[in-house]
């Protein structure tokens, strides 16, 4: 939104006295000082310079929350009406900043240390060693390569989801029933799905799908070869998330202007022609939104892999997230794992920014 001035315009005569201003400032700085003092004291206690202290950092957290509340309250005290407006956004902004920015800075520090939870020394900075190790780590590059495959699979999901949306948008009976049923897979937790499908239906001896394949004369093996295993992971993930794109596309289809479709029918377009020339181009904005969001979700893919194959066979199904998860879980390699995660974050940010740029250039509208 680039409109100048507030959409909801309020005119108020705020006469804020200097004393009130000073009170507001004192509230913020006082609580901030309290928080900082407690933190310093606790730090001194943990390094052994002060004899008494708290068992943990919880009191500092309380002081921090207290400061945040004081900051919000001070907005109203100092700025009056304008402060009340700020109060809408400030809590969420504070929340996100304290839960994202601080941990990210901390992560940046950890990622340049050799920290292993098993080692007694704690974190020791080790310069660029982790980066060099990453450069030579075939499994990480392999996981990144797999992510490319997984992201490409979105295109197939998109085609299926579009088909289903068209079906649901057609003149059918029991539309509500089909809509609920098609939505169901999205409700299921990936962990449950990985048992339901990955570990029981695809079980080689007794699983119903293995049985079906054996009936048809084949020899079932779902997680033996890299290609099939990767395909199975993609299929399970697609099964859960196709409804997501389908619903978005369906909403887009239902918002299409009816006149245009009728006009194309009057002009004698066949079904395929009206799809190709009218529906699909009109659906492009919705499609792009759905695909971009789906890709963003796909980049976090891990639960199914962790629970079904744990990356096997030979790292063929590993996603970056599942690989780093194992690095933490099995080897407690905290420093190195965090570096991998940070590199992944940088790659994702670059990738998504480029994607949005390309998309907005292509659509000729701001993203």
């Amino acid at each position, binding site marked *: *939104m680039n409109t100048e*001035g507030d*959409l*909801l315009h*309020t005119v108020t005569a705020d006469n804020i006295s200097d004393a009130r201003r000073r009170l507001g400032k004192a509230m913020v700085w006082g609580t901030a000082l309290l928080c900082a003092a407690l933190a310093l004291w606790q730090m001194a206690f943990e390094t052994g310079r002060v004899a008494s202290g708290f068992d*943990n*950092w919880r009191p500092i957290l309380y002081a921090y929350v207290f400061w945040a509340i004081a900051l919000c309250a001070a907005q109203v005290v100092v700025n009056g009406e304008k402060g009340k*407006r*700020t109060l*809408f*956004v400030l*809590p*969420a902004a504070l*929340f*996100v900043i304290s*839960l*994202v920015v601080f*941990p990210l800075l*901390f992560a940046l520090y950890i990622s340049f240390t050799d920290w292993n939870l098993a080692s007694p020394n704690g974190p020791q900075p080790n310069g660029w060693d982790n980066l060099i190790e990453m450069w030579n780590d075939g499994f990480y590059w392999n996981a990144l390569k797999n992510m490319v495959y997984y992201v490409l699979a979105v295109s197939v999901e998109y085609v299926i989801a579009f088909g289903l949306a068209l079906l649901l948008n057609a003149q059918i009976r029991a539309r*509500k029933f089909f809509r*609920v049923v*098609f*939505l*169901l897979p*999205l*409700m*299921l*937790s*990936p*962990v449950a*799905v990985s048992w*339901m*499908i990955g*570990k*029981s*239906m695809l079980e080689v*001896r*007794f699983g119903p799908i293995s049985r079906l394949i054996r009936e048809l004369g084949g020899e079932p093996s779902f997680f033996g070869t890299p290609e099939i295993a990767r395909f199975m992971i993609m299929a399970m993930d697609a*099964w859960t998330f196709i409804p997501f794109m389908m619903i*978005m596309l369906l*909403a887009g289809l239902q918002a299409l202007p009816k006149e245009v479709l009728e006009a194309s029918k009057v002009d004698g377009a066949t079904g395929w022609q009206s799809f190709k020339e009218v529906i699909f181009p009109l659906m492009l*904005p*919705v499609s792009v*939104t759905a695909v971009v969001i789906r890709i*963003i979700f796909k980049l*976090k893919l*891990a*639960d199914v892999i*962790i*629970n079904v194959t744990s990356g096997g066979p030979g790292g063929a199904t590993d996603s*970056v*997230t599942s690989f*780093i998860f194992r690095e*933490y*879980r099995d080897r407690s390699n905290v420093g190195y794992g965090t570096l991998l*995660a*940070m590199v*992944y*974050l940088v790659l994702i940010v670059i990738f*998504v920014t480029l994607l949005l740029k390309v998309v907005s250039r292509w659509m000729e509208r701001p993203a």
Partner: protein
Amino acid sequence: MSAIFEDHDTDRQVNTKWWASRIAIYAALLTWTVICLFPIFWTITTSFKLAPDVMKGNLIPWWDFTPRWKGWESIGLSPRLIGEVSTVREEFLKRFWNSAIISISASLLAVVLGSLAAYGLSRFNYRFGFMRNSDISFFFLSQMILPPVVLALPFLVLYKSLALLDSRVGLILLYTLMVLPIVIWIMRDQFHGIPIELEEAALVDGLGIWGAFMQIVLPIALPGMVAAFILSLVLCWNEYFFAALLTSSNASTLPVMVASQTGSQGINWWSMAALSSAAILPLIFVAIVLEKYIIKGMAAGAVK
């Protein structure tokens, strides 16, 4: 008797074509219905099977096998055991409660924070330093691309020093963070759809901006908030990654319980099936009852 009114050949062709397309559409719909429902059907029926039924591949209850409560007994939820004290059931219920409390509080918190922020961003112009409204929106929405794995470890260490490891509060905070961008995305769209004249009228009538928001805007935006709440609920209920890393015995959620059981595979499929069914049934119920809101929530950002 030969028909007096006979369709012209081209008309008949159209008729068969119409039928063909009908049949194709319903065939496709039914195929996908089977694809969607079979895994759920399989899991729920398996939870009533005994070992021989699983091995023989019996599928249809009462037809090729007699349903038994064996699977549900293993989590202490069968007619026979429901009256008795059962440790497994307590274990299960504890996880269930954790899941319920964590996902409901996280969704509530996210909806409150997110709605406020979305309302502010859709009505007023802010300047925090160099950040304008569009920058602030982008800042919130950009949290969506943050992969959980980046935050996982700093939080592990941070929570350890804050004594929040393996606590519900810790997970609630993280889950709120996780769903906040989605809530803001949905709610921004909702508030854009509400005509600004309503609040102007309220302001003229003497309400403050917060009064106008609480009394005029909130009731109108309520369906959208419900949609955002339900979507967040689904996401939080199903979350596994953080729960697996940050909880151990006290605060672990249902997905963690399900996942820890899959490790010890063996052949007790019925108990796994019962556990999985119990984990998915609440959400299936939610989906059937509140389908309208879920679709509304997901459609919100898609159509501008």
